[in-house]
């Protein structure tokens, strides 16, 4: 009995330093901030309790609704396009021997660059006067005639594209490392049965990397909630809120609009959403979905 207790103490002894720092830097100030969601604090003056008024306003705020919708699109986009391209890239990579390290390095390369640098590159490329337009215009293709970042129809996906361009190489690395652990004999067996490439992927590769795949889905769903950098730097959420996302709207309300209480309410709702996602994953795991 004593042994178990001391074991418990010891495990906390190892855990607590980093958890303490994490709590102190992130959780504690977040809780303080969330407490502000029932106030109308402007960041300076006196703090006044206003009950659920911020939430009532939020539910009729057209920009907030847009931002929620955009976060959803953002998540779906990242769950599909980068994952599909990364799976393709990783699978094809396992089939080559030559230049493999080089390819891997190239795919991972944008992940090494800072978001400001990546945004600099793509803002330039989308710029009608300097970028891709100067090349495609000569070919008679007018797709880049206006910056994709300044049209309300394309801005969100253009920002998503730049972020994904930087991010997908990371997925390639984690998928390929998982793929290398697939039992070689399974492929040989598939070979003997005359399986096509797609069949090999579908029946051998994919099931073997499933834990990693599910992990990547969870990480993407979590990471797309506070998505901020690329939106903030590339479009600021515009034009006409067409690329507005929750974190950027929160930042705008807190820092530009001096509406700290309202911003905290947005944060509180983002919080609820994350709990639902992680809870869902936990539930699926309990239901033996092997994830």
């Amino acid at each position: 009995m004593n042994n178990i207790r001391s074991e418990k103490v010891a495990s906390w002894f190892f855990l607590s330093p980093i958890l303490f720092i994490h709590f102190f830097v992130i959780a504690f100030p977040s809780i303080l901030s969330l407490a502000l969601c029932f106030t109308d604090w402007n960041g300076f003056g006196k703090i006044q309790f206003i009950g659920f008024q911020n939430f009532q306003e939020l539910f009729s705020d057209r920009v907030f609704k847009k931002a929620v919708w955009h976060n959803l699109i953002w998540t779906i986009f990242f769950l599909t396009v980068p994952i599909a391209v990364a799976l393709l890239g990783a699978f094809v990579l396992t089939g080559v021997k030559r230049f493999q390290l080089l390819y891997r390095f190239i795919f991972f390369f944008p992940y090494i660059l800072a978001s400001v640098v990546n945004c600099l590159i793509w803002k330039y490329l989308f710029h009608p006067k300097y970028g891709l337009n100067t090349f495609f215009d000569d070919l008679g293709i007018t797709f880049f005639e206006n910056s994709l970042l300044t049209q309300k129809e394309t801005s969100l996906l253009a920002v998503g594209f730049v972020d994904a361009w930087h991010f997908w190489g990371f997925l390639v690395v984690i998928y390929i490392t998982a793929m290398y652990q697939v039992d070689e004999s399974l492929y040989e067996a598939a070979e003997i049965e005359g399986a096509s490439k797609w069949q090999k992927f579908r029946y051998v590769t994919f099931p073997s990397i499933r834990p990693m795949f599910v992990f990547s889905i969870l990480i993407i769903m979590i990471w797309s909630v506070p998505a901020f950098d690329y939106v903030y730097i590339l479009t600021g959420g515009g034009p006409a809120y067409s690329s507005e996302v929750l974190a950027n709207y929160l930042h705008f309300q807190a820092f530009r609009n001096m509406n700290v209480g309202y911003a905290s309410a947005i944060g509180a709702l983002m919080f609820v959403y994350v709990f639902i996602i992680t809870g869902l994953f936990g539930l699926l795991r309990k239901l033996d979905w092997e994830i």
Partner: protein
Amino acid sequence: MFIPKLTTLAIVSTLATASIPAIGYAKTVVTWWNYSNEGSGLNAALTEDIQDAFNASQDEIELKIFFKGEDVNEPTRTALLAGAGPDIITSSGSTYVRAYYDGGFLKSLEPYSQKYGWKDKILPWAYNLGVFGNEFYSFPQNYESMIYFYNKTLFEENGWELPTNLNEYESLAQKAKEQNIFPFAYGSSGWQPTHEHLVGNYFNTYAGPDNVYKALIGEKKWTDKEFVDALELLKKHMLDGYWSGSLEKYYANDWDGFSAQITNREAAMMQIGTWGFEIMEGFADKKDDWGWSPLPVLSDFAGNPNYQLSIGGTMSINAASKHPDAAAKVLNWIISDKNRVLEFTAKRNYGEWLLPLKFETSDFSGSVDQRIRDYLVDFAAVTGAGDYGYTTWTFYPSQAGTHIWKDMESVWANDISVSEFLEEQQALWDKARAANELIPVGER
């Protein structure tokens, strides 16, 4: 071996500490946070002509200017909130001063103003913008207004005249477009609040400054017909490609872009703040010549042509400052010499650091561009006669002031109608009025 070394060290360090007072006895250090504009050389100019010049002018105070990035308001606000920050606070306008004042972060400058006679040196409307609860709190760092610039040579070649009413305005735009020239150069890339310049122009030249004034003080609603019509007109012109050809191109166009448009005949005119004088320097190596004029009045009820009043930037003293007297000395040094102010702002092409002092024609040296002097003198005469309007970024409370440009995009995108937009505006004004967060307007 060890001991002698230690002795040397001790001697050296004693000498070092002893020599500090000899080099310069403890000066009072006054810190100042300013926004940074490295590219155009503002940082270097401020360091040299204000900081170093002030430090050389006396030996009690050492002024230190720090550049806090493009947006000085965000770091300042965070620092003030934490009880820190510099002695001299700069902000980008009255909205921030109001918020700092409400938070109790500003020291009243009233005693200094009386001591140094600031009220007599500063233009009354600008001085009044810094008065809260009958006390002076903030010092205008710059004044500006919206005007027209145009390619004079291009106008002469085509026999074009500057418009004086809506009909002429629209037909001139049409004529320019027929020649594949944009009526106006402009764009918002790099500075999203650019839209508010256009909104302000249409409010002040179509709805008219009298109506704007009434709405500012609450005697009229922003949802009234004059304002709706003004913005419907702006929307029509924007979607018609008046600025850089199309809404999308306007969004993508940045400072370098529209500077090139106006100097390269891609655009005929530009309605921009007086900081646009800097752009006109680009004509120096071109065959064309440029001119300026006040904004034309677009409706028959908007009164005479007017200049919109605006403060671009303020200076105040931090309530937590340990050396407010020294900080006030710095401020007084800055405005006490009109020539120095004029020399400095000339270097900034009158776009920055044009302190709203009571300049007279005799204050200007012969080297000042005739057109710029004309503007400065005309501004004083016209506004003195009561023909002035109101810029959004000086007279709007914070949330309405952000909404006016940010959500204008939603109008142009047809997400909301002009009426819905103005209803949102009015609601934000009502909210600010109820919370007593309005900016002092001054009686008209």
